[in-house]
């Protein structure tokens, strides 16, 4: 920390609460002395000036004097109700950039050969990444048996994406625990740390415990999400006709099933898709859009009915993962998707 000495002292004096809008806090109105307001305004202006010059401290919790890393590490596992191997957990929270910086710092201080008894989390991170990816893939396949493999991989990509994992990492409080060069830690750093934590849990408590952890924190992110917001179907019409063709069915037939206010700007048209006189799906269009748009909507609805991903399907059974049949069998790819096979698959 290369802050000026004077400022370091100042931080622990009474009234420098960093980045707090003093004039707007309630305590302002609880204080009756006339001198306090100008005093606080002065402090605030001074803080603004310091912010401009870049003299303000970071908000890192570890900058404060009562920071106790050991107890934080202990509390981390207790908070999550998990048993971690402590030395492994410490290793998982060390980013390689931290080791580089520490080595440089020791060399600056005159240590010829810095002897740091620590190794980074790169290895653990890769291990954890594989665990998350494997389990997520198996779980999504087991819960969405009828969904094409393309959809499954889109969902898994979403679950293992950097944004999502770093958000989860922040959620379980990794931000202050990670030893890293920069503060606040970057997305990649948090993701690596989170993956390493998963790997550590695997090594300390076993794979099944680890899977429960992944299920609770990562897979539950699918709750309340629409699959087709994650997996974007580009051309539903051609996909639907392709599926029908593959299965030896007739080409689908769009029909106008409802219309209202035809000559107005708020016209409503509803189009339904039928195949061999069987209803498949429905969609709407409105004034100004082409008929193709409505057919596309209807085809898309028909696909979501075929893939059993409508809003009416029962929620993902997170509470009974042992009842799911987790295996390595891939789902049907979209080019070779069979209606008959899908109807034989029984979802639990």
């Amino acid at each position: 920390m290369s802050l000026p000495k004077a400022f370091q002292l100042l931080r622990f004096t009474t009234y420098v609460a960093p980045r707090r809008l003093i004039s707007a806090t309630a305590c302002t109105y609880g204080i009756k002395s006339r001198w306090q307001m100008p005093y606080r305004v002065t402090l605030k202006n001074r803080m603004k000036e310091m912010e401009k010059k870049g003299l303000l401290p970071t908000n890192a919790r570890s900058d404060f004097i009562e920071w106790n890393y050991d107890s934080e590490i202990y509390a981390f596992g207790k908070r999550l109700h998990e048993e971690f191997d402590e030395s492994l957990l410490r290793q998982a929270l060390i980013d390689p950039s931290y080791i580089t910086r520490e080595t440089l710092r020791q060399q600056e201080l005159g240590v010829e050969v810095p002897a740091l008894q620590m190794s980074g989390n790169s290895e653990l991170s890769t291990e954890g990444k594989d665990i998350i990816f494997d389990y997520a893939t198996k779980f999504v396949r087991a819960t969405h048996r009828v969904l094409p493999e393309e959809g499954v991989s889109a969902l898994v990509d979403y679950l293992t994406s950097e944004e999502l994992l770093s958000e989860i990492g922040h959620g379980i409080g990794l931000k202050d625990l990670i030893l890293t060069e920069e503060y606040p830690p970057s997305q990649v750093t948090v993701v690596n740390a989170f993956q390493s934590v998963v790997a550590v849990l695997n090594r300390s408590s076993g794979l099944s415990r680890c899977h429960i952890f992944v299920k609770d924190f990562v897979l539950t992110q699918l709750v309340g999400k629409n699959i087709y917001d994650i997996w974007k179907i580009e051309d539903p019409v051609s996909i639907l006709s392709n599926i029908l063709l593959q299965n030896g069915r007739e080409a689908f037939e769009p029909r106008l099933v409802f219309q209202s206010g035809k000559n107005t700007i708020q016209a409503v048209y509803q189009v339904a898709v039928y195949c061999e006189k069987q209803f498949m799906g429905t969609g709407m269009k409105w004034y100004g859009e082409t008929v193709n748009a409505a057919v596309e909507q209807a085809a898309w609805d028909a696909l979501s009915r075929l893939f059993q991903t409508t809003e009416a399907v029962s929620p993902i059974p997170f509470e009974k993962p042992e009842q799911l049949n987790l295996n390595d069998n891939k789902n049907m790819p979209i080019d070779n998707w069979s209606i008959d096979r899908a109807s034989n698959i029984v979802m639990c």
Partner: protein
Amino acid sequence: MSAIRRVQQWATFGRMWYLYDAKWQNPFDSADKIKEYISGTHKPIYHPLNDCGDHVVVINSRHIALPGMEWERRVYFHHTGYPGGASWTLAWELHRKDPTLVVRKAVYSKLDKNLLRRGKMARLHIFADDEVPNSILENLSGQIRQLRAVPKRLDHYTDEEIKSFPRIFDWPKDYVIPN
């Protein structure tokens, strides 16, 4: 907004066009019914600030039936704003002038008195007879049930129907039925 939500939104707030046949109907009772449709209170999503009312096309307003002595007793008041500008018009006079006005005024007075009233009235289309322009007929997507069935007058029955109608008793042969 995802595609499914967009469709759902449009389906929820799409406007319906209802047809209402005012023939032999009480316009004041009908106004209670029509009011619900043009202000949207017939939908569970209703909220006073939620613009979810539907259109209503009223036909045959010339053939409405006012109850009791209303044609002669009901008076419509108007004031031009100048001294001596007050005028009182009887319902039958108003109806002769414009056969849509009795229905229109009935609905207008039943609506809530606020700034939304004019907008709601714009969704009411009244026609004196059953001749409706094609551009409006094409919009229709539903129908409001009449409050009561139109009664069939004696002169609407054919002679055969009248003859074959079951009788309680027969007139004496020498009885002369006065015309």
